[in-house]
């Protein structure tokens, strides 16, 4: 069975030879493993570990494509930048992390209409045709499942107005947030139309959409259905119209939103963050007949760098979630630099051993 066939079946919960395999890493990890001689420079994780999937982020969704990012302040450790979304973001120079949201030009509907909306047109400059073609060809040559990857509406809005203004806007002026949702959803579909017409379809669609944090989602299920779901339906219905399955990534605790995600059309939920309160086994019991899963293995067991701890975590979950043929092995977030190469190698090897049918 090729990787492509395996993932296609897993997303439909149909028989396969083994569970799937994929992973995300913090960039520091790649640098360290290369420096330590475990990975050869220029060799991808996909090639080294034999992953079943390959993604390509092909869209630039920053509002003003002509705006040159402007350095406002710089220290030895951080740099403060005004970007093409009108956002003032402080980034760490020493390590990889989400930037601090310092300020935004958009705080309400007026700011959105003035600074962002006029820029959101399906400009071909937003599309990395060459990158998409290269990764698609590479995945096809290696018979991997190839996904168009990118963010969906929730992750597209907060870079222009920040989480706090966006979430307050959902209460104070829901029609404004709905308008942002539908503008970004339509732009995503328009750009997909252009890309797929020129370069061909992927095998699936992967949306990154962090909608939760510790023990709770950012919004109620009702708010999700009223404000965010129309954008998810537009983008996911488009994917389905092309026969493409949809994988949805969300960090944080999003269990209360899962019924809404299923209504929207997702085929697989990824990444099932244990430390935020997500429970892979419970999700499998509740939704395993309708949904495939990727992730849910507590990454803290990996950076214990203790094989017994890693084995226990895998044995506690894999035999159950593999039953319905709908599981891809992945940590519950990304592999940080604290994880030794040997620990991760063991995780993959033992996971595949017990993940065979």
């Amino acid at each position, binding site marked *: 069975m090729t990787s492509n066939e395996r993932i296609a079946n897993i997303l439909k919960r149909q028989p396969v030879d083994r569970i799937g395999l994929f992973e995300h890493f*913090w960039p520091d990890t790649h640098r360290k493993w290369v420096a330590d001689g475990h990975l050869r420079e220029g060799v991808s994780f996909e090639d080294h570990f034999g992953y079943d999937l390959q993604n390509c982020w092909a869209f630039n969704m920053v509002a003003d494509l002509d705006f040159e990012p402007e350095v406002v302040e710089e220290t030895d450790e*951080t740099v403060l930048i005004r970007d093409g979304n009108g956002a003032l973001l402080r980034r760490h120079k020493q390590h990889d992390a989400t930037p601090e949201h310092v300020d935004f030009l958009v705080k309400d509907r007026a700011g959105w209409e003035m600074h962002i909306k006029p820029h959101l047109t399906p400009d071909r400059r937003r599309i990395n045709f060459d990158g998409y073609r290269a990764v698609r060809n590479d995945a096809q040559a290696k018979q991997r499942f190839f996904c168009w990857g990118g963010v969906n509406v929730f992750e597209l809005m907060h870079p222009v107005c920040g989480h*706090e203004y966006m*979430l*307050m806007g959902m209460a104070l002026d829901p029609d404004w947030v709905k308008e942002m949702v539908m503008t970004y959803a339509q732009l995503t579909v328009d750009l997909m139309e252009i890309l797929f017409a020129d370069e061909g379809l992927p095998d699936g669609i992967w949306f990154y959409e962090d909608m939760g944090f510790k*023990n709770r989602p950012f919004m109620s299920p009702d708010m999700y259905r009223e404000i965010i779901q129309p954008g998810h339906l537009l983008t996911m219905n488009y994917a389905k119209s092309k026969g493409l399955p949809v994988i949805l990534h969300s960090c944080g605790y999003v269990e209360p939103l899962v019924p809404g995600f299923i209504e929207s059309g997702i085929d697989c939920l990824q990444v099932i963050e244990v*430390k*935020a309160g997500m429970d892979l086994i419970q999700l499998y019991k509740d939704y395993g007949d309708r949904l495939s899963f990727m992730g849910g293995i507590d990454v803290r067991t990996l950076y214990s760098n203790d094989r017994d701890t890693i084995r226990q975590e895998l044995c506690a979950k894999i035999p159950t979630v593999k039953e319905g043929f709908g599981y891809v092995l992945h940590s519950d977030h990304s592999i*940080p630099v*604290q994880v030794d190469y040997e620990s991760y190698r063991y995780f993959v090897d033992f996971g595949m051993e017990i993940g065979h049918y």
Partner: protein
Amino acid sequence: MSELLEQIATCIERGKVNANSPYPPDMKGQEGADELVKKAVDEGVAPEDILNEALIKGMGAIGKKFSANQVFVPDVLMAAKSMQAAMAHLRPFFESGQAKHKGTFVIGTVQGDLHDIGKNLVAMVMEGGGFKVVDLGVDVAPEKFVEAVKANPDACVGLSALLTTTMVNMEKTVAQIKETSPDTKVVVGGAPLTQEFADKIGADSYSPDPQGALDYLTSAVS
């Protein structure tokens, strides 16, 4: 008087900022925390009564509902916004010493970590709970926490971290605070944290949500 304070508490809990605010829809056109607290001050209601019997009560109610997953972040943000509108009328009394906070709360995200949503939510709930909040921001070095504790000797401290890669910096921060000020209460929170980790690094308390931190520190300072 008690009816007015009840009305203010309701405005705080429901996130009704002022008469112009369209939120919540069922209170559209009604006076909000801004107008009602001004009215209470003008009528001579003691600022500490307004704080204790209206603001703290309203924020406590929303905090408990948040802990129970009955309300979500947008609701807490609106409650905090209405509380800030109310506090604008009370701040002069606290600055002049005519009214007193429950205590001082120093908060920051630990060194190496630039996340601030969780920290901001805790700061809002603590302020609504009657504490003076000293927000050190994000990416805060242990030395800065120590300096803040020296400047505010009776303060409690809150440390936030979102990343597994930065929570290790909490241990250094707790150690430095406890070395210079052993009696200072330190609470910790953030996505990757557990009670076990908090115990290991010598923190006094761990809370998975803002209300838990407020309840612990209210009891610690009383």
